[in-house]
């Protein structure tokens, strides 16, 4: 539909501190079109999570403009599905009830959609399980299904697989790609894992810290599913990594100077 489904324009975010204001984000410009999967990568303290919070509507003390489908973002809503590093499920609800949350499972359309989503996130057979019976990866898939049930205009994922082991993480990345391809949801994923950023992103946004800003945006022109071992993947990875090293360079120097 719109070329600028999500538009971030001239966003600055300053955290006031007694020892001088900390500029978390400086002059951020980002355009995401509908159905795109964009990954944001950068070292800790580069403001990538702050940017995601602003888009989610969880942080409103910023300067600049953030538009989702033409309307400014004023607070959290089901338009913006948010996935945190921890799944944040309701421990007293079963998988299916967690996905439905405040929507009644008795309603046939909700029931049907929940069943579809359970299929989509590969949790068939675990509908009646409680969160304590799930592994980390399974719980995170429940959280994704919960967000997708609300048909969000954009799904924001803040290091969603950071707490998982390498094998589960690789599997979850494939599951997420599958969901994205089947559902066509616009996704913005923050990560500190270079492989993850290149494996998932149609575009990779590289950010650098102090002050947090975008240093480059790389288009990853590889067809899905990508092969991590292929030479073209390795080439893309190298290109992004070189961007990353440009970013890291001065930081390391500054650190060594102290």
């Amino acid at each position, binding site marked *: 539909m719109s070329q600028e489904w999500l538009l971030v324009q001239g966003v600055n975010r300053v955290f006031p501190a007694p020892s001088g204001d900390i500029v978390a984000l400086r002059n951020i410009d980002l355009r995401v079109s509908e159905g795109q999967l964009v990954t944001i990568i950068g070292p800790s303290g580069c403001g990538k999570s702050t940017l995601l919070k602003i888009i*989610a509507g*969880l942080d409103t003390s910023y300067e600049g403009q953030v538009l989702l489908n033409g309307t400014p973002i004023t607070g*959290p*809503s*089901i338009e*913006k*599905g*948010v996935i*945190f590093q*921890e799944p*944040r499920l*309701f*421990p*007293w*609800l079963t998988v299916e009830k967690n996905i439905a*949350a*405040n929507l009644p499972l008795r309603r046939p359309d909700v029931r049907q959609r929940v069943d579809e989503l359970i299929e989509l996130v590969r949790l068939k057979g675990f509908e009646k399980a*409680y*969160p*304590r019976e799930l592994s980390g990866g399974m719980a995170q898939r429940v959280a994704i299904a*919960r967000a997708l049930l*609300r048909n969000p205009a954009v799904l924001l994922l803040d290091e969603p697989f950071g707490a998982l082991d390498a094998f589960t993480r690789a599997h979850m990345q494939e599951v997420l790609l599958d969901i994205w391809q089947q559902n066509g949801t616009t996704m913005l994923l923050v990560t500190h894992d270079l492989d993850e950023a290149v494996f998932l992103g149609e575009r990779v946004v590289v950010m650098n810290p102090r002050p947090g800003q975008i240093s480059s945006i790389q288009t990853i022109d590889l067809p899905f599913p990508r092969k991590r071992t292929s030479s073209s993947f390795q080439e893309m990875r190298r290109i992004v990594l070189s961007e990353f090293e440009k970013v890291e360079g001065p930081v390391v120097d500054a650190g060594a100077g102290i």
Partner: protein
Amino acid sequence: MQQVETRSAISAKPKKQIGRSIRLSLRTVNVLLSLLLPVTVLIVWQGAGMLGLLNPTLLPTPAVILQEFIDLTRSGELLAHLRISSWRALLGFLLGGGLGLAAGLWVGFSYKAERLVDPSLQMLRTLPHLAVAPLFILWFGFDETSKVLLIAKGAFFPMYVNTFLGIRSVDNKLFDVAEALQFSRWQLMTKLMLPGALPNLFLGLRLSIGVAWLGLVVAEMMGSSSGIGYLINDARYFSITSVVFVGILVFAAFGKLTDSLVKLLERRMLRWQDSYKGGDL
């Protein structure tokens, strides 16, 4: 190092044996284990009494107490006292516990209510039953009202404190989720705060019922012509120690019974809880 090794070797062996031979009767083993201590005490007690080591007026033997229990049950006296006592305890608990729940919810939901009400309630909480009882009797007379109110006063506070605490201990991160999913205010209460507070609500319920029984004894001993507390007090007056024991045992049995019922309910409703269930130390 050596110590650690032997220790683990010892603990590993019996575990395996139990697992192989009598896994099904683990429940039975547990019951037998819990009976071990009381049964030993009873045997020693009975033996000492039969050997004439105990003064029968101060400490009658278990056999005598059992006989007294059978007599009191046959005459219907015990049941009549028990009925009136249970009724008082129930009424007082429902009144006090209900108000405690309501106040706990209100103060838990609103920090303004907390500032307004909580300090005063905390002050009232420390008032002992025996200090308030004479006042209640002055105000409401010797009839049922003062007794039920005294029980209610006791039952109120555990329910109030734990409900309040339960609501305030709901995981803050889940509130972010509820906000992002656009829970209504009503949904926030019924789908997040209440279920989140449930473990504490049950704790409050159990403590509240326990305190209701305690308050009952005080109320019935202060002045009454019926109930288990009266039975005990009356028997003490005439030095019929066996009846005192029967009264105490009935209190203990009923207290334990009600507590077990709540625990059963708790286990069913808190199935989702992922907490430490105790190790084999």
